[in-house]
């Protein structure tokens, strides 16, 4: 069983998770972030916070998964979570990039068409015959 004194040290971690969760919620309320992209982020923060609030059960889970040291378990889970969140960000970025490229092309093609139409109209005005 993990040392109770050690487990008490995870409370600051819970506080840190809660702080970041609070910042994310604040950004959501101010519409600086979209809910769609932050659900997984909040989910991970919630799991981390919960793990710090009930360290005994979390430590038992870590032991059951073969981790001798609880900190290693937390470190591994944090790394996996970061990798997944980064992957999600890359996918979102790719989608946004594709849309930006298409919109940039659309804008350029429309501008060219407008310029041609205006040029044609000016030409017709100059030479009504």
């Amino acid at each position, binding site marked *: 069983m993990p040392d109770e004194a050690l487990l008490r040290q995870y409370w600051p971690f819970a506080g840190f998770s809660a702080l970041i969760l609070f910042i994310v919620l604040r950004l959501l309320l101010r519409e600086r972030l979209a809910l769609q992209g932050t659900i997984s982020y909040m989910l991970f923060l919630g799991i981390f916070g919960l793990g710090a609030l009930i360290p005994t059960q979390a430590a038992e889970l870590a032991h059951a998964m073969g981790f001798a040291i609880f900190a290693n378990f937390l470190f591994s889970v944090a790394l996996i979570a970061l990798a997944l969140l980064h992957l999600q960000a890359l996918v979102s970025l790719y*989608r946004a990039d*594709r*849309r930006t*490229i*298409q919109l*940039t*092309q*659309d*804008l*350029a*093609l429309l*501008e*060219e*068409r407008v310029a*041609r139409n205006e040029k044609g109209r000016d030409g017709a005005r100059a030479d009504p015959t």
Partner: protein
Amino acid sequence: MTETPAAMRLLVIIPALNEEKSLRALLDEFKLAQPMLPWATEAVVIDDGSTDRTAQVATAANVRVVRLCRNLGIGAAVQTGLRLASREGFDAALQMDGDGQHPPGEIGRLLTRLSAADAPDLVVGSRHIVRRGYQATGARRFGQLWLIFWLRLLCGLKLSDPTSGFRLYGAAALRLFEGAYPDDFPEPESLAIASKCGLLAVEEPVEMRARQGGQSSINGLKPIYYMIKVTLAVALAVARHSGGRNVTKRNAALEPEEPNAG
């Protein structure tokens, strides 16, 4: 083909990034070659977010200019031209560099090849068949040889100049690539896609020149990145399109294309 060549329309796409030094001469040369071409031909310069006077030079030469408000890269610039060609009902589109490497006098050769009996879908101008004019040397040639081997291994393509950006897209290739075209360093990847989507890509010997101005985008450590990226991109393209899956799937999540408005 039931239409006579005279009724056929070709759009010449010239992607250009900071090519003010070479573009003027290229467009003058194109205008001299234009009456000799068997198809009705228009040119469009795709200004890929240039910071110099590329767009002004093209406008002064009285050719069409599409100005991208930011640099999208060669692939998206070419795709912009292909979308324009498709939208306005052109029968084919030709891509040529804005740096003067591809002489407009050679366009006729590619057009003749496109109209040949075997009706290819994509005609690539190759500088390595008859070995006239500018030839890639050193590391560039080594890279090309690797890509020749790679495309032959994965797609069965027997090409001598897979990095050539002097190419003619027939109707089927135009339809395929206006929906989605590979991003950066797109030439070898697009050949793999065309091959896996059942298009016939052939080569035609052409004479090329050294670039007439500006700087190559592949410099410094970029050749190493180029080789790794293109090698992986070709393999991915083959995996993605094996069984004839359509290239336009990549853009399925995007807004629907507006209908042809001429």
